[in-house]
């Protein structure tokens, strides 16, 4: 046997093995180059703060005199230029705990729920920033929704006879009549020009120029019927009425005609608000992506209204679009992803604090979050 040839054969095999190994390494590098920079994103994480307003807070509302209000079993307030939340604010005479709020002018409205023995609800109002409270009567049944729309307050209540809607008339609630009474629940109310729009979970959207009487539901989109849309939120964007639902569709009404439907591919939680950023406003939309990813998406508005021709793109916070220059709500996409991708957002409220836009996000069971100083975190 030729020892020299055996050694040469072994060296050849080693060289081939090394070359194959280097090739495998090169393939791994090539494949890796198109993936998520996970360790980089972790390096951008911020330590969660302890939420001052814990649990599942209501939507934050703002009175015209610059006071923010939120309820989560207790009532708290904060000046728009303040540095901290104050409370709990007591509602003298209330038998339950505050669970929801609405604002109209300089007045705040608080819905209190007494769930200790029987489920009972009361509606209270204060026009002196919580100093004194007056009870608003007139609703029959259990109040489960309060929304301010333009110049009035709409209230939804579950009564024995069915679901009822009331409007505020002075300091009492008067029943709103419908051609065909909607089923529960009232999920939003807006005023567009001189018209009121009321949205219900499965009954659709109703429109009227008077708050006392509504006809039948507006015509739904040809793509999806009202009882399949499962509406969760309603908002006025410029002159467009926009509704979102858990059916993964967004419905847009321009000039009072039929609703156009836009497939969004993710469940929309109903959290909606417009973030004003000067030249480019953004519509913020809470999402639920198969319970794997939560958080929100952005839509770049066109002159304050929805983009024309359904040219709507739900982009991730931090994304600057294909041009690389589009407005976005956050400075760091990585910080947003680490902080908010597991957070279920139920409501948005945006406002300006000392000239800087602030985003407040009411969440499911994780308290009130905020975007301040270029960072998403629990509101302290």
């Amino acid at each position, binding site marked *: 046997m030729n020892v020299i040839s055996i050694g040469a054969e072994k060296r050849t095999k*080693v060289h081939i*093995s*090394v070359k194959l*190994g*280097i090739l*495998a*390494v*090169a393939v*791994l*590098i090539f*494949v*890796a*180059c*198109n*993936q*998520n*920079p*996970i*360790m*980089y*994103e*972790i*390096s951008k*994480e*911020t*330590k*969660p703060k302890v939420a001052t307003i814990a649990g599942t807070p209501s939507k934050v509302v703002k009175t015209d005199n610059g006071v923010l209000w939120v309820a989560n079993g207790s009532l708290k307030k904060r000046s728009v230029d303040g540095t901290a939340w104050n409370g709990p604010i007591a509602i003298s005479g209330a038998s339950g705990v505050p669970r929801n709020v609405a604002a109209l002018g300089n007045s705040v409205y608080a819905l209190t729920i007494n769930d200790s023995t029987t489920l009972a609800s009361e509606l209270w109002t204060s026009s002196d920033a919580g100093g004194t409270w007056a009870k608003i009567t007139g609703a029959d049944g259990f109040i489960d929704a309060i929304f301010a729309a333009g110049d009035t307050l709409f209230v939804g209540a579950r009564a024995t006879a069915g679901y009822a809607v009331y409007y505020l008339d002075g300091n009492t609630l008067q029943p709103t009549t419908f051609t065909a009474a909607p089923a529960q629940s009232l999920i939003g109310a807006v005023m567009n020009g001189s018209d009121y729009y009321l949205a219900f979970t499965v009954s659709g959207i109703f429109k009227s120029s008077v708050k006392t009487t509504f006809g039948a539901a507006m015509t739904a989109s040809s793509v999806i019927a009202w009882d399949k849309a499962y509406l969760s939120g309603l908002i006025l964007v410029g002159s467009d009425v926009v509704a979102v639902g858990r059916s993964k569709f967004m419905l847009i009404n321009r000039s009072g005609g039929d609703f156009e439907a836009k497939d969004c591919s993710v469940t929309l939680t109903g959290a909606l608000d417009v973030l004003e950023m000067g030249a480019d406003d953004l519509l913020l939309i809470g999402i639920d*992506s198969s319970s*794997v*990813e939560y958080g929100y998406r952005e839509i770049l508005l066109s002159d304050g209204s929805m983009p024309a021709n359904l040219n709507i793109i739900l982009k991730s916070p931090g994304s600057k679009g294909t041009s690389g220059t589009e407005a976005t709500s956050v400075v760091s996409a990585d910080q947003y*992803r*680490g*902080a908010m*991708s*597991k957070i279920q957002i139920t409501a948005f409220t945006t406002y300006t604090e000392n000239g800087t836009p602030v985003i407040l996000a009411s969440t499911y069971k994780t308290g009130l979050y905020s975007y301040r100083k270029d960072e998403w975190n629990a509101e302290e």
Partner: protein
Amino acid sequence: MSIRVSRLKFAAVLFCLGAALATAQNDAPATDGSNDGSSGNADGALPIESEWTGSDPSAYTSGDQIFRIGIGPIFPLFFINSDGGLAENKVYPGGTGSLEYSYFLTPNLALGGEIGIMFSGTIGQNMLFMMPFGFTATWQLVTDRFEFPFSFMIGAYTQNYTTENYFGLFAKPSAGVYWRYNPDWSFGLRASWWAVPQWTADSTKDMYGNFAEVTISARYHF
């Protein structure tokens, strides 16, 4: 030098280290067959004294196999970012486990494979998961009933964080000490250093993660 070329060189260095260890050969214990001169009794009976001198018989021979299972904590050491600086460590210590198979080519050299898993929490209250797998080359020294394997693993890993994933190159040198309990089992400790490079389309987000694991292990010999 382009970034891609420098990455290739880095990875090539890692692989060549492993290849070099895999091609190292150990000489078999010399058996010169020398004896003390006895060649048997005059009547042809076997000599009383052993004809073998020199080294003791090896604990391992070619064809021996080991199956190892290990579990223990893992510690994030440091993360180097794309400009060579240290990124803030935002990963907490976690846990890791692994399974390994080795086949001895010589009494000291074994080749095989390993698969593992790790989990760690992050400062943002998220979870980081990694699953490395690859080929291993082991050089083992034996003294009495203590065994000291030195291994090098090269392969790949998958990583999961929130809804994101990564797949890339992985390398892990290890050193261990085991006590041979009986012919079938040995128990001991192993320390390893995880080299976890992460290269993406945006080179400014490249990171080089470094972790240390200390595991208690049980090895089955067969």
